[in-house]
């Protein structure tokens, strides 16, 4: 049985990332409220939860795109700074592709990552072939199919050789075949030692890809643990409700927090 992140931390192994009491407020609303969790290096963490739970915001906080109102984000035990962020890459729910060719999209990202000009084409083609997109290298990026666009966005992120890859519902609007291709690409990256943190709505995908689970509800961590265990034996009523396909309504929130705090 693999150890949980908490066990590893108790054993003195430093997690790759830590969120300590993250709070984010805007316009009087508190969108995330005291998030604390660890991300273990080299593992695949899935972040789940209903709409508005704060999943995408959590990813943005971890990636430094959004600054928390309170609390901090640590990378290898130190505050997240520009140098640490350069080791992270993120793929957004809707792939943001430049109005250029597939290859030019790759080269742009590599240039931003500081890869010398002479190495860019080789690195780009290598990442494209891993995503099985090398035959499309000279096509305009924005005429690719949805699945190809998402694979390009992932290839573009991986080409910069990040230590950690964030994915925000990468297969949200894809058919099963395209989903399979994207999941294979994520697993390949994971096999190469890249830490993966992904938001998903799809319990099946969480079972297929997830090693660690963070389940959010209404801006708080409702449950964390090994994905395989928790998805079969949820401790929190929120996750249990989610897995059973029941709606956990806002009116029940107070009891929910009491239950998860036990």
């Amino acid at each position, binding site marked *: 049985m693999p150890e949980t992140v908490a066990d590893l931390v108790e054993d003195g192994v430093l997690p790759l990332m830590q969120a300590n009491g993250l709070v984010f407020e805007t316009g009087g609303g508190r969108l995330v409220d005291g998030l604390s969790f660890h991300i273990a290096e080299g593992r695949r963490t899935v972040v789940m939860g209903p709409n508005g739970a704060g999943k995408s915001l959590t990813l943005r906080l971890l990636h430094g795109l959004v600054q928390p109102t309170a609390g901090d984000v640590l990378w290898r035990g130190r505050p997240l700074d520009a140098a640490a962020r350069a080791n992270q890459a*993120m793929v*957004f729910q809707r792939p*943001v592709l*430049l*109005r250029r060719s597939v290859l030019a999209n790759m080269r742009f990202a590599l*240039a*931003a990552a500081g890869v010398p000009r002479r190495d860019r084409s080789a690195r780009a083609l290598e990442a494209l072939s891993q995503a099985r997109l090398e035959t499309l290298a000279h096509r305009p990026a*924005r*005429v690719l199919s949805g699945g190809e666009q998402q694979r390009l966005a992932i290839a573009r992120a991986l080409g910069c050789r990040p230590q950690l890859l964030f994915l925000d519902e990468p297969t949200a609007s894809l058919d099963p075949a395209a989903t399979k291709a994207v999941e294979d690409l994520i697993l390949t990256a994971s096999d190469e030692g890249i830490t993966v943190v992904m938001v998903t709505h799809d319990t099946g995908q969480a079972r297929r890809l997830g090693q660690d689970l963070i389940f959010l509800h209404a801006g708080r961590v409702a449950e964390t643990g090994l994905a395989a265990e928790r998805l079969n034996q949820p401790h929190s009523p929120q996750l249990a409700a989610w897995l059973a396909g029941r709606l956990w309504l806002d009116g029940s929130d107070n009891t929910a927090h009491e239950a998860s705090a036990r």
Partner: protein
Amino acid sequence: MGDFWQILGESFRLIWAGDGDLMAIILLSLRVTLTAVFLSCLIGLPLGAAVGAFRFPGRALVNVVLNALMGLPPVVVGLVVYLMLSASGPLGPLQWLYTPTAMIIAQTVLVTPIVAALTRQVIEDLNTEYAEQFASMGVGPIARVYALLWDGRFSLLTVALAGFGRAVAEVGAVLIVGGNINHVTRVMTTTIALETSRGNLQLALALGVVLLVIALVVNAIVMALRASAVRSAYA
């Protein structure tokens, strides 16, 4: 109305004959306007892109000023440039008044705010789409502006076209600072105004026809470029 068709016929004969005076006027018009549009893009594209891509104090004010300057009356621009270049003005020693250079300056002043304001809108829309991805990639500020300008290239072509349309059709500013001197600063619009008042309607109408054709051709080229860009989703 018989007169109109007769005059139109004669004006076409003038164009067809390639009348020397006519050609000189057309070429000077194009030289002045294209140079002014080029200079306006040189200034207006980076300026508009910077305002569109960055948040800074006073940005709203810059926006208001740029948008207001879009509607500058050409005669007012002409007057101000005239004062600058006149013998007693700060740029008087350059002796540029009543030269094509003065006309280029006036049209550049007229067109730059148009290019800058429209560029700002294009770049701001594009930046909304790209900002998070660029932040994630760690793209620096210079690279960001450059990338936004490049990815907006087909929309910006239309921006330059708007500037060209304004400059090529404008008469007030070039008349004041150029003086409409024969063989020196006489361009299509000033000639049309002059020849009409002198009753030389054939030449005036011939130039009017040429002006329309130029506008049509330039628009058609830009539309064709944009259409091909849309097909590859670059626009």
